[in-house]
């Protein structure tokens, strides 16, 4: 859709609203909002914060894409969280165990990760399609189960390695790593950004150019209309869930293959949930999700920067929450206004100047 007003106005409004609200919170807590916002802005020009923001955004972007694929089909895949962690630990173990030449090794790990993510989404998908069990319930349960699976797998008695007091998988050999893009002082950008970009393009292409994408969107909007058009809602639900799981499987890969090379007990959690918010912010559009991911990562970084001037980092959390809430509301308002405007426009285009009512049908 090329309607820029519809696309850009809501997030802009949401950000302004979030800034106003957090200003109030800052004033109440006795801090100066201007100083806070200045610090947040300045962090981008400081040390390697800008690069690490982008790095984090890459991870969020993948999580956002995974969630968005589900949203396209009206599937609420809360399980991105569990899927990515399951995939991460499996890929880390398999990746460390495999011995392959450089590029092949990386590809093999990515395939394992996508496969594992999809596998972890399979059960909820089957339950939804064949038994009508809500994917929300099943994926939440699987999110919780993944703790046990990760803990089990990284136990030294299974595949784990103990260093210091930390547990992790064994290290992936250099052939299985994705080299970063060195930016000197500013740090190193994840090489995965290329893959993430390609994935975003692939997502866009799939949705707008392929039959599968069309069927996915159609089925997501109206199962009945899609069925009449020859699209099986079951098949689409299954496909969306598995595809979402496969992309979720990649979420931890930038960090695993670009920085950590192991999946540890202390590995960051919660990317999956962030992904849901990011997809919501980006309205499931590949560029929108990129914007949402950057914004979210920026706010995450701000939380730490704000510590340095003694402002509680919760301010950043408040902003994140407000933005998501208000962006949803704003989109809905703008959408309704646009629909009404369009109906008026259509009405004028009709030769009689009015949409025909049923009553004009020549009744007695």
């Amino acid at each position: 859709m090329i309607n820029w007003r519809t696309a850009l106005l809501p997030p802009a409004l949401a950000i302004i609203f979030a800034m106003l609200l957090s200003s109030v919170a800052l004033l109440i807590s006795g801090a100066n909002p201007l100083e806070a916002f200045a610090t947040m802005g300045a962090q981008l020009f400081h040390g390697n914060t800008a690069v690490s923001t982008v790095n984090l955004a890459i991870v969020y972007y993948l999580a956002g894409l995974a969630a968005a694929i589900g949203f396209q089909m009206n599937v609420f895949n809360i399980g991105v969280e569990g899927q990515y962690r399951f995939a991460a630990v499996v890929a880390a173990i398999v990746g460390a165990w495999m011995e392959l030449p450089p590029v092949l090794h990386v590809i093999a790990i990515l395939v394992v990760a996508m496969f594992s993510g999809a596998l972890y989404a399979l059960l909820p998908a089957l339950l939804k399609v064949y038994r009508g069990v809500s994917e929300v319930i099943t994926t939440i349960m699987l999110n919780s189960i993944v703790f046990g699976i990760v803990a089990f797998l990284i136990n030294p008695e299974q595949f784990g390695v103990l260093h210091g007091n930390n547990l992790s998988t064994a290290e992936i050999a250099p052939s299985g790593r994705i080299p970063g893009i060195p930016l000197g002082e500013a740090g190193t950008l994840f090489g995965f950004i290329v893959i993430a970009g390609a994935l975003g393009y692939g997502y866009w292409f799939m949705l707008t150019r392929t039959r599968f994408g069309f069927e996915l969107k159609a089925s997501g909007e109206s199962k009945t209309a899609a069925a009449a058009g020859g699209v099986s809602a079951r098949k689409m639900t299954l496909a969306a869930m598995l595809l979402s799981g496969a992309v979720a499987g990649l979420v931890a890969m930038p960090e695993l293959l670009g920085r950590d090379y192991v999946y540890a007990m202390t590995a960051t959690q919660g990317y999956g949930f962030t992904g849901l918010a990011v997809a919501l912010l980006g309205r499931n559009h590949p560029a929108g999700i990129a914007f949402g991911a950057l914004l979210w990562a920026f706010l995450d970084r701000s939380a730490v920067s704000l510590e340095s001037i003694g402002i509680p980092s919760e301010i950043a959390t408040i902003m994140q929450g407000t933005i998501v809430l208000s962006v949803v509301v704003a989109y809905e308002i703008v959408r309704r206004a646009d629909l009404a405007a369009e109906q008026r426009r259509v009405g004028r285009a009709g030769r009689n100047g009015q949409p025909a009512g049923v009553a004009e049908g020549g009744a007695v």
Partner: protein
Amino acid sequence: MAGVLAMAGCAKDSGGDGNQAAGEGGGGEPGSCVTNEAPAAPEGNGEEQTTEHGDIDASDHKIGLAFDVGGRGDASFNDAAAAGVDRAVEDFGAEKGSESPAAGSESEAAKEQRLRQMAEQGNNPIIAVGFAYAEAVGKVAPQYPDTEFALVDDNSVDEKNVTPLVFAEEEGSFLAGVAAAYKTSECQVGFVGGVQTPLIQKFQAGFEQGVKAAGGDNIEVKSEYLTPAGDISGFNDPAKANVKSKSMISQGSDVLFHAAGASGQGVFEAAAEGDALGIGVDSDQYKQKTLADVKDVIVTSMLKKVDVAVYDYIAAVADGNPDDLPERFDLSVDGVGYSKSNPDIEDITEELEGYKKAIVDGDVEVSETPEG
């Protein structure tokens, strides 16, 4: 009438294995489950040996403190680290620098950013609390060679300007195990771990060995964890700890040792309700204000003196010789130990001191990993 009779019967039953102590209100005599004699206590029993730091001036040092999840006020090792810094500020005139808690699910990069931010603001030394910082410290320390870093609970980082502050948790927990063995009258004790990580397993290992050293096979130890590795909620879930503890008590355990951070409160509450005893962890929990209501059940606490280590570390940095610090804060340097603030412990301090000496002397070796 029938009820009274039944109760009498009960009391008799629970007296256990023809042990003489059956008369006393539903349980055996403390110490009745102990089968092995304690090693001899040293002369001059139980005096605190505190390191004396002469006149140290740390006024040109600004101390940065990067907390683990929870931060100041967690009544556990974050607080202990903060207490060490506070004392150093008071005693050595050091300047208090940045202090910042980690968010619940923050990324690795956030930790790095925090450490960097502190280094750039001129904090030196910077103390990172918790092994979750290991990776970040390993990465940031080389970039700031003139800044000293301390890493609590982890010794895996091999950098010149990084000093590990690690503890022999298993040794302190061993003594907790001995205390439990002496205090149980049901010949069954329990361990409640917060999260099943290698670190917490050290507490479990020491505790189990301590119980065994005193009671042999006569005392059963039940060990339970609240959450698996990776799910840190186990350190902050008193309700869950309470349920688990209650079930352990109902199964016969009457002394519970916890290594579960803020969840410990639930353990003590269950003990107070179920007529059992609790053993605290990290700091002297008998004295903790938040636990004042249940302090009577806290017979002792296994001490992990993060505050002392941090204090000593700051002194050593000010003195210019952080490498002289002990490689591991164990019983011999009083880095770990047990608390004596609850008078109920007095009757067994001699035995505890005996075991302590045996460990310090190397007569008893304590393993870091639990059996099985």
